[in-house]
């Protein structure tokens, strides 16, 4: 009988995120190389980890063809120099790919089957544009199983505005501006850079080195945002400015059982408390994190008030606002996305989950007064995913101090 174990997040890294397309910095870089370089960087940062002790490698990608195909977890592990005895597999839950990888690896560790696992994701949306090669079953339309909007993410975001008229475009734009400003401030303070693995990039001007995210627009203003086109509806509310962009990038994290971490002298950055995934109507997929969070809280025996830090994936500003609105949290609550989010940094679909974890883990280090935090995100075809984490640096004393402060 396998022995149940506590699950910890040891470390996580990512490549800088690029803008998708010919002008993006990763246009000439393979998707698998992004995840391989992130994996090498992760293992170099954790030299205590004997590579042959890693029990599995789960790598997510939404479009699993070409350089994102060939069972990425296995092929990337070989190419990153892991011993051939280490197995690996691919995983897909669209935007929540890496989060699902981390959940499932966490569950495998918690069950006692694994000691150490790598979880991550990659999406090269330049080489694999969203929806490329899909072939939806005609029954979806014939039997009206989902609305036509369901496969157009921007259209699903417009529907959130429809459902919650008080969540206005102005509020969405203001949230987006905040994301840009918080990312700029976090970069200025050197917070984002600490988990970035530089990637050599081949360009028309020769080799260069990607050392920071390509997408942020610190010069963003409310006026500028107000003037942007609404590509999903005439006179709509969703714009390129209050949504995440199309991006290329990869993330990987190392998860372990608490015992293995102790044995190998690894310092856990977070402890996994619970996770949950849930489904909603596909045409309004952005509200998915609400039921998934409720599920995860229920399993953890916690309430939303216990959560001191939120890392919410900003697929769309309106989609984050609907989450906050549901739980009675202010648009500009300081617990939410302290270093900004996907609107500024970018959202290479299946990779984003681990980025949320990286940032939450660093915030835990800085804020021992916080005990619990969540990472949550919406998922195409009407889903949400949530993981709840506990801060190993937490102390009651620090919490009292921070309450007073």
């Amino acid at each position, binding site marked *: 009988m396998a022995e149940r174990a506590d699950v910890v997040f040891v470390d996580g890294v990512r490549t800088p995120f690029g803008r998708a397309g010919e002008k993006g910095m990763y246009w000439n870089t393979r998707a698998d190389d992004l995840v*391989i*370089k992130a994996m*090498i*960087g992760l293992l170099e940062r954790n030299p205590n980890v004997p590579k042959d002790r890693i029990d599995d490698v789960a790598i997510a990608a939404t479009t699993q063809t070409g350089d994102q195909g060939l069972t990425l977890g296995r092929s990337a592990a070989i*190419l*990153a*120099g892991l011993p051939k005895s280490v197995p690996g597999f691919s995983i897909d839950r669209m935007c929540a790919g890496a989060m699902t990888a981390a959940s499932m690896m966490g569950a495998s560790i918690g069950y006692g089957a694994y000691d150490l696992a790598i979880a991550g994701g990659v999406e090269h949306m330049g080489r694999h544009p969203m929806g490329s090669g899909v072939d939806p079953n005609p029954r979806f339309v014939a039997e009206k199983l989902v609305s036509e909007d369901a496969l157009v993410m921007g259209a699903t975001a417009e529907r959130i505005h429809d459902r919650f008229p008080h969540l206005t475009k102005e509020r969405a734009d203001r949230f987006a501006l905040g994301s840009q400003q918080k990312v700029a401030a976090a970069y200025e303070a050197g917070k984002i850079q600490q988990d970035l*693995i*530089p*990637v*050599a990039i*081949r*360009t*028309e*001007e*020769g*080799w*260069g*080195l990607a*050392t920071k995210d390509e997408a942020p627009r610190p010069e963003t203003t409310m006026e500028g945002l107000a003037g942007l086109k609404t590509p999903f509806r005439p006179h709509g509310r969703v714009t390129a400015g209050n949504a995440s962009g199309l991006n290329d990038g990869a993330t990987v994290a190392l998860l372990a059982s608490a015992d293995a971490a102790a044995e190998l002298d690894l310092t856990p950055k977070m402890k996994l408390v619970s996770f949950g995934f849930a489904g909603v109507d596909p045409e309004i997929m952005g509200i998915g994190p609400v039921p998934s969070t409720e599920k995860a809280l229920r399993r953890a025996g916690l309430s939303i008030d216990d959560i001191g830090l939120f890392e919410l994936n900003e697929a769309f500003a309106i989609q984050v606002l609907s989450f906050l609105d549901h739980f009675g949290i202010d648009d500009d609550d300081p617990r939410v996305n302290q270093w900004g989010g996907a609107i500024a940094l970018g959202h290479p679909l299946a990779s984003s989950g681990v980025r949320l974890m990286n940032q939450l883990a660093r915030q835990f280090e800085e804020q021992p007064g916080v005990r619990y935090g969540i990472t949550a995100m919406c998922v195409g075809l009407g889903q949400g995913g949530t993981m709840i984490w506990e801060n190993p640096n937490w102390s009651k004393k620090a919490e009292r101090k921070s309450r007073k402060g």
Partner: protein
Amino acid sequence: MTDYTKIDFTELEGLSDDEVVTHSYVRDVPLSDGRVLALVTLDNGRDHTRPNTLGPKSLLEYAETLDRLAERAKAGDIQAVAVTGKPFILAAGADLSKIAEIPNREIALRMAQLGHHALGKLHTVGVPSFAFINGLALGGGLEIGLHADYRTVDASTPAVALPEVFLGIVPAWGGATLLPNLIGIENALKVVIENPLKQNRTLKGKDVLELGIADRMFASAAFLEDSIRWADDVVAGRVKVKRPNEPGKVERMVKWDAAIGIATKMLKRRIGEVQQSPYAALELLKGAKANDREAGFAAEDEALADLIVGDQLQASIYAFNLVQKRAKKPAGAPDKALAKPVTKVGVIGAGLMASQFALLFVRRLQVPVVITDLDQARVDKGLAYIRDEIGTLEQKGRISPDEANRLRALVTGTTDKADFADCDWVIEAVFEELGIKQDVFAEIEQHVSPEAVLATNTSSLSVEQIGAKLANPERLVGFHFFNPVAVMPLIEVVNAPQTDDATLSTAMVIAAKLRKNAVITRDTPGFVVNRVLAKVLGETMHAVDEGTPFEVVDEAVKPFGLPMGPFELLELVGLKVGAHVLDTHHGAFPERFFASDNLHRLAEHGKLLARDGKGNVTGYDTGAVKIVAGGTNPMTAEEIRTRLEDGLADEIHRMLEDDVVHAPEDIDLCMILGAGWPFQMGGATPYLDRVGASERAFGDTFHHPPVAGVGD
């Protein structure tokens, strides 16, 4: 001292008309603490099949780029400079075809100087400089890196080398001067002279690190990232670079000249003194002891200019192109699509040669191979040899245990020819006698299908006659290997009059699968290699028979620069074999090939050379000398040489007239690959043209214009 900035390089533009320019791109890369590294990427815009090369335009662009970076370094914009290449390739050095077109010594000198002018700028850029050797780095490609302050190398780099000496020149863009001062004289001798002369051996990433050419090696997966990070550490002073192989005072005082002396002696013994480039390189390496860049570079300029305008460089480039290009697209080869599939191989004979065939076929084709001989004992002996060899390969780690099992299981032996029934390729290696070969094939034909290809390894019999007793002679082809089978890269594929295209095509495809270079010849005595060698043997034995001492004959042949003298070669192939080959040719062409009774007597005696305990030749066996004594018309070395050169020119001319092969290039390719005739001769015909033998023998030259240097 040469002031390279004062030299006008515009004259070189004539050489750049169709240059594939390797551009020097620059991107800034942020280092720690706000420092900036300017990363230069060399890229000619083509894929890896067309490596970066360094013609005049490429070098001038590189120089201008580094000038700009020196300005920026001075202004404090950048704190480091690094050079790397496009994927898999740093640079493959100078463009050989351009070097061959240089019209005079002045331009040759300019070309050498331009290399120093451009490459040297990395040394004077004003901030720490790095070369990230990300892949192939040959000649000038490696020299780019030698001008840098620091180097890293990709662990998966396929080849790093200074192959100049192999091609008849010297590493003269700084290599001969800088390398020994970086890695020590003995290591430098290995890289600059020893490796090029060992079939142009190259270095892998690990060797580059161990020799001390690179300071660090990184895995390819994140080579550039790791190199940049390391450069950052070096610039920031976090890493101190140690170079254990860098020569110290003692090495300069004591070891340097001694090492040069030993190398010179060894070189003279091994290759003689005809080939100029190794000796020119030795001179430069000797001079590098002073560690005086300017003087060293000036000496390199002059040495390169001298060699570029000489005959040997032209012949070497000609030979290089034969081996690199013509060998890969054999003249007259029929469509590959005609080739028949070969799924099982039969080898008739189980002696040493036959066993070597079986081993080669099973390794390269990975199909069942069955061997046969007159009795079970011989078959068993052959099988034991093959299995031992497979075991040796396994022990050396050249093949895995699974692969070894697979190969052993594929090889079987039999005395029952019926086991050949499903072979679609049968090759014989039985005694070199027409009747035997005829009977062997006639017997095997009873068992195999009418389409099975039959191949004979005859070296001098008529393939047509060997097939005289066959019902289907169109499937017989000559397939002549050279000894040792595993090592020698040539197969003469003999296209007999009755051989059909499907059979010929099969032979060519099989040769390629065996990783051999095949040349198609007509069914004439001795084909190419043995006929040319028989001419040498006939003339040299004739001189001996006439009373010329062996030593004088050796002296006569020395200017050819052959890998070994005619009598040493004779002893290597076997005196009896030699006698047989000469008889065959005398029989076919009695007016041009001398018979030699002495040779038969020497074969009976069994010994020609005297050797010391280590096997080195010390002179001639007294018994042998006694046997050949008695000639009354001794010739001078010069007379013999002229006779031999003219005889060779005449014979090769006749071979071409008779269409044994289509072109002199094929003769040369055969002599280079089958007999190891040197690049500096261009095989045979460039040499015969340049010494006037062709003109004397048939009033023309083989090549128009002749493959010769431009002189001063």
